[in-house]
């Protein structure tokens, strides 16, 4: 089974979806992502879905779940690069993902995350802990 790579970029995790999401792939991604947020103490997650061309209600809900899980683990989540067709489909399915932050591309998403973190932690106290946490 394919796994979606999760890249660590400083305080953030970058998840780039390059394949069409199968249900079990998403399930595995949820496991991996939550594990890595805890392991690296990540402060933000960028979910880049610019290569995603098709969604169904399950995938739409999973995107929402990923964001909600990250938030519970105190990491800000930004979904970036959603294609017009995907956005229309999600709205027609009634999944507006109102609580998920969105950005047009990874660059803008990164800016958004930096702003959010600067708000949370203006003095950079939480950055001191740079080492990996024990599993």
């Amino acid at each position: 089974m394919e796994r979606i790579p999760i890249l660590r970029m400083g305080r953030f995790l970058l998840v780039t979806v390059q394949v069409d999401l199968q249900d079990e792939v998403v399930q595995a991604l949820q496991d991996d992502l939550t594990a890595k947020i805890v392991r690296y103490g990540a402060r933000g997650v960028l979910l880049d879905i610019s290569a995603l061309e098709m969604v169904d209600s399950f995938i739409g809900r999973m995107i929402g779940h990923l964001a909600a899980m990250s938030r519970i683990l105190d990491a800000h989540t930004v979904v970036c690069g959603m294609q017009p067709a995907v956005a229309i489909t999600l709205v027609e399915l009634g999944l507006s993902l109102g609580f998920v932050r969105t950005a047009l591309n990874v660059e803008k998403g990164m800016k958004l995350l930096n702003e959010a973190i600067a708000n949370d932690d203006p003095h950079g106290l939480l950055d001191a802990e740079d080492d990996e946490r024990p599993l």
Partner: protein
Amino acid sequence: MASHIPDILRKHNSAILTDWLAEQARSFSRDTRARDDTPALSARFLGELADATAKGNVDDVDGEDFREIRALLEDLSRQRGLAGISPRDTAMFVFSLKKPLFARLRQELSGDALVDEMWSATTLLDRLGLLTTEAFQRTREQIIERQQQDMLELSTPVVKLWRGILALPMIGTLDSGRTQIVMESLLQKIAETEADVAILDITGVPTVDTLVAQHLLKTVAAARLMGADCIISGVRPQIAQTMVHLAIDMGDVTTKASLADAFAHALKRQGLTVVRAVKS
């Protein structure tokens, strides 16, 4: 017994044509555009009619024998339909042939033969008249359809106001079909230009009911999913009242009274300010 109509048409061709043209000139309303090509067309029509009826079936206008006549009439109706000539004038082309034709029939025939031929001539011309009207109607419907399509495409331009700011001035009633096109073109443009803010201007939307509001909110939600913020502008006083009376909840969508206000808001969001140039 074979019909006398083709013989009479051939024998009195020029006389019928002259009377017919006079009849047409009288029956047409003051619109002169119809008359330019009428003499040539009328002469051709008479010739074709004589040929078609001579083949035996006088009133079988849907048959093979009348193919040429049908083509001629449809062509004529289409041209007149495109030129904006009234359906009455278009149909009178055929119907005004009755009087001259009947006059010649009366001249040539008498008794039962006359009655029989009058009947076939009436049926024939009525059917040809109906054919003309149908073709005319079809042309007009095609024109309307094309114009509708044009309007649909013309009325949804997405305009770039500034780097990162798009505006979508919406004109006309918003139904599901149009909203779909509006939504698609807006989202496409957002993806292309990576605009952060889109202004939906509804100044040109005559009424906002629950359905239209729902369409608007869907568009806003889809743009937000892509990472762009929407501002709705051009809310007229009556529309604001209607929306409150209908208990339409616009959620956390920013609404502004005018496009200028929305643009100023969008500039502010981008961290831009407009300053007056200092006179030196």
